[in-house]
């Protein structure tokens, strides 16, 4: 049996945006509020990171650039690249992986629990998706 649901009305209660001072990532040219080419979900899975030079990029994009280039420079201003501290932490790659592990654990916990369905659907969700019991 299949159901189809038509949404007649909805109320937005919150919206989010990255306050990066620019609309698009200077590397992939995709919006900061969207995904870089190999990102799956916008938002916390495609975070924006700043350098001390104040230029911002998707974390995946800047990490890919730093990994592929011998000189660690900002793509915009060519200053030596340094992550701006106090935002996403100094080891963003590590940070991201921690989060992913956390959400996996959550999925296991929620298994068999009907009310948690929306969490298990979100493969890449993070702490903010934790349902309130």
């Amino acid at each position: 049996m299949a159901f189809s649901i038509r949404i007649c009305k909805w109320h937005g209660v919150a919206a989010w945006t990255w306050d990066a001072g620019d609309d698009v990532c200077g590397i992939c040219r995709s919006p900061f509020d969207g995904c870089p080419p190999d990102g799956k979900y916008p938002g916390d899975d495609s975070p924006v990171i700043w350098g001390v030079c104040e230029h911002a990029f998707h974390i995946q994009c800047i990490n890919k650039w730093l990994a592929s280039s011998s000189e660690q420079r900002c793509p915009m201003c060519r200053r030596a690249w340094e992550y701006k501290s106090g935002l996403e932490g100094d080891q963003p790659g590590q940070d991201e992986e921690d989060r992913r592990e956390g959400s996996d654990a959550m999925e296991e916990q929620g298994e068999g629990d009907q009310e948690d369905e929306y969490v298990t659907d979100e493969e890449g969700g993070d702490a903010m998706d934790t349902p309130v019991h």
Partner: protein
Amino acid sequence: MTLDAGRINKELKEISKDVASGVEVQLRGSGLNKLVGYVPGPKDTPYEGGRYEVDINLDEQYPFVPPKMRFVTKVWHPNISSANGAICLDVLKDQWSPALTIKTALLSLQALLSSPQPDDPQDAVVAKQYLDDRKLFERTARHWTEAFAIPKNEDEVCMRIMEMGFSKEAAQKALKEANGDENIALEKLLG
């Protein structure tokens, strides 16, 4: 890693919207990785009036590696090989940044045409001539521009006549009989 189609499509759209810069980019075939660019020769240089075709190849790693560019149109310039069009330009090599684009790279080529860097040559013969005998260099560069880079006027006239519905053979024949005069050729064809 696959080609970042999203970014390349965005770049192509942006270039097609921007007529003011004078540079053009088109797809060579069905793929996004083979492109052809056109750079107008800068004013007040021996290259003025020329339209330079540039072969562009995008690696799968683009934009993390620079686009591969080569002049298809022959050009006499210290930093461009007179034999195969290879280009010596820092932003196409170690000074590339993923914040640069195909358009900025083509504009850099245009800037390179305006200001040769003979100390870092791609073509040693041209560079030597540039340093030793600037007048001769400018004459040679101009000669190459006229011979290879300036769209031929007679081709344009022939194209205009063909656009009116005449075959290429008929247009060429009429132009020949009219000694290249477009109006006389047209009268012959229409008469």
